């Protein structure tokens, strides 16, 4: 079964088509390659092992959050609360582990649990309160979770986490950051989940046509609650990696992460109208964002110009995908 149902060629199966299929699935790949090519040319530091590992590490948090965001976008929704969930879940973990001396394992469970819980609340308010759009429910919890994080920590950061908690975000296996390995494993799991399980397929169906899905006997509310819980869980997992990365939990963590996560999913080919988007596209979308920021830093582009450049590249990255789509259509 294909990840992106729309992109399937008329006669899959032959070798040649497989390659085309992959290219079509990973439309954003071209943007990534072009961008990397330009940066390699411009900066001698870009294409070094060190820097590639840098990018892998820098993209990890957004990648983890973006995959949860992808699910919500697939259902034609959005999750604005991810950034606040990063803050709340890690701050609670900080209080439990650092301040109250709870065992790290329990702390991690609490962190991920809180993420899933906030997500579940998002899903419940959306479905059970029949709110018209997740923008509202998640904008609400975005504020509530941020406020709670500030209240709980009295607005100050918590540092000195035990190594076991830092491990995911800070450790390396040889030159490879553990966080990046985690991303690859998570993406693999999501690939299987979205393509080879019923719930995964239902997620695509809900986004494509909720009414038809409901009339096909699928409990849409359940699917949505699962989706938002997963999104919250993934945000908390992203938070866990963040804690490892900075050895601190702080109440302003994750500000604006929702934009990066959404951009990653959309650059990766997901559609706000729901039902369209792929796991690997999202990974590439997150990579593009990370490569762009990294490259501009390496080139010492001034902050203002970086802002301008990021704006332009976001548009161009998606535009290249549009052009590729058009070309593919013509070529047939």
């Amino acid at each position, binding site marked *: 079964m294909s990840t992106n149902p729309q992109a399937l060629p*008329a006669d899959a199966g032959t070798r040649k088509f497989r390659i085309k299929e992959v290219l079509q699935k990973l439309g954003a790949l071209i943007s990534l390659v072009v961008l990397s090519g330009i940066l390699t040319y411009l900066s001698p530091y870009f294409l070094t092992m060190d820097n590639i590992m840098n990018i892998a590490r820098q993209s990890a948090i957004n990648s983890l959050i973006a995959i949860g965001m992808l699910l919500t976008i697939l259902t034609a929704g959005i999750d604005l609360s991810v950034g606040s969930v990063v803050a709340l879940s890690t701050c609670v973990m900080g209080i439990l582990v650092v301040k109250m001396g709870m065992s790290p394992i329990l702390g991690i469970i609490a962190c991920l649990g809180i993420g899933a819980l906030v997500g579940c609340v998002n899903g419940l308010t959306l479905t059970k309160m029949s709110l018209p759009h997740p923008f509202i429910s998640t904008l609400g919890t975005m504020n509530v979770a941020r406020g709670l994080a500030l209240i709980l920590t009295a607005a100050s950061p918590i540092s000195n986490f035990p190594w076991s908690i830092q491990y995911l975000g800070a450790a390396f296996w040889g030159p490879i950051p553990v966080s990046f390995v985690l991303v690859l494993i998570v993406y693999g799991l999501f690939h299987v989940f979205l393509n080879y399980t019923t719930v995964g397929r239902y997620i695509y169906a809900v986004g494509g046509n909720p009414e038809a899905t409901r009339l096909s006997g699928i409990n849409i509310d359940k699917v949505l609650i699962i989706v938002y819980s997963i999104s919250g869980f993934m945000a908390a997992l992203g938070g866990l990696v963040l804690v490892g990365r900075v050895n601190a939990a702080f109440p302003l963590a994750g500000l604006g992460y929702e934009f990066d996560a959404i951009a990653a999913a959309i650059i990766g080919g997901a559609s706000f109208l729901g039902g369209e988007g792929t796991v690997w596209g999202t990974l590439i979308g997150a990579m593009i964002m990370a490569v762009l920021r990294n490259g501009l830093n390496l080139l010492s582009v001034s902050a203002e110009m970086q802002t301008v450049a990021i704006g332009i590249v976001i548009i161009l990255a998606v535009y290249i995908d549009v052009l590729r789509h058009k070309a593919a259509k013509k070529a047939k």
Partner: protein
Amino acid sequence: MDQYFLSLKGISKSFPGVKALNNVDLDIKAGEIHALVGENGAGKSTLIKILTGAYQYDEGEMACQGNQVRFASTKDSHNLGIACIYQELSLTPNMTVTENIFLGREMRIPGVGLLDYRRMNRIAQQTMNDLGVDIDATKLVRSYGMGYRQMVEIARALVENAKLIIMDEPTSSLSEKEVKILLENIHKLKEKGIAVVYISHRLEEVLDVADRITVMRDGCKITTMDKQEADQEKLIQLMVGRTLEEKFPKIVAKKGSLALRAEGITQNDLLNNVSFDLYQGEVLGFAGLVGAGRTELARAIFGADPIDSGKIYIDGEPVKINSPEDAIRHGMAFLTEDRKGQGLVLMHDIRFNSTLSGLKRFCTFGPFINTKALENEVESLIKDLQVRPANSLITTRLLSGGNQQKVVIAKWLCSQAKIFIFDEPTRGIDVGAKVEVYNLINRLVSEGAAVIVISSELPEVMGISDRILVMHDGEITAEFAQSEATPEKIMRAATGGISDEYKSASAAG
């Protein structure tokens, strides 16, 4: 030269992987009624979309009243007086009937420039009244069902001062009464010198209304003939390349035990105390006019809409059905009349859609889908239903209307239900495929399933049902065995004529 309002020469159009039109010629005389017939996917809709400028042709040429034309958008064709009712309803549900009728050609208050709702409402309401449908022009389109919406589309074409009106299957969700009114209107148009291109799979209608008939097959024009030369057999022969032995191949299956009983189903003003029984091995037909509440009844039984009161029994046991999920768990299937809005996830492929409802069946290992088994099942469904193109990975949005309908049918076959509710199952399906659907229904009942068929085509209900219930205004007004049903009796019940007789009879029985 000038005798043709519009003439097309050598038109070809390809989509990725399909040549939808191949060197097609078509001439439309001013003031004639020109019917277009052909199997599903023959290219009829594509051809008329080229006529209106919604699509651009790859090769060929087109002339309007002797002048070479090429339409860049529907605006161009509209300026030349071409109006169109598209096959897939194209209304904006969030706007009023009036606004939809005048969309793109609004009337403004002279001198002020603001929209003249008074005038538009009046004209729209007048048109709806003339069409004999009970529609409030100031209400939202969203609040009306398929049949009504179809009438709004028709009104939309009538309101324009068009020289050519194209109708792509305008009657597919209309019942006898509305069809009659429509055909009368078409004759009136002809008297006014307006040409009509008429597409339908209901050959009786075609033969009734058309002056000339063009037959298409596989993207090619086969022939154009005058009405006098045509008859049903000949048309079918030309369309499908073979003759059909029987239009309604009916088998009578063994009637089993009670499968479904509905008792006193009541819902707001829409359904009033509706009760009926359905047995295994039985095909129960529902006849009625547009707006009779048949769709509402089906939706209520299936748990798609909440009901105010009433009980449902399955296999004699009372069951609670609050959602389609419950209904499916109890072995029901419901094919909706609106395939685009409620049947298909259009952006996804045939495989995805046809297995959506029965997906759990393919989970052999925990929650994981056995892709191989699923593929095999889909392939065999495609073959059974003759879906074209027979490629399970094609996005359903790109299929022709009839083939989309087949995919929806496939979805419910795949769910392996015991009780099937088919709401307008042959809507937009060609004659050949209709027979396949009837055969399929036969197969289902012979395997012990119970089937409800809601249809606005009287011959169909009468041809395939063991028993026929007639609805009017949210109530069941008559019941007939297949042998005793006649079109006249059904029509009388459908217009509320004999409801009292039935009521007293059912009270006694």
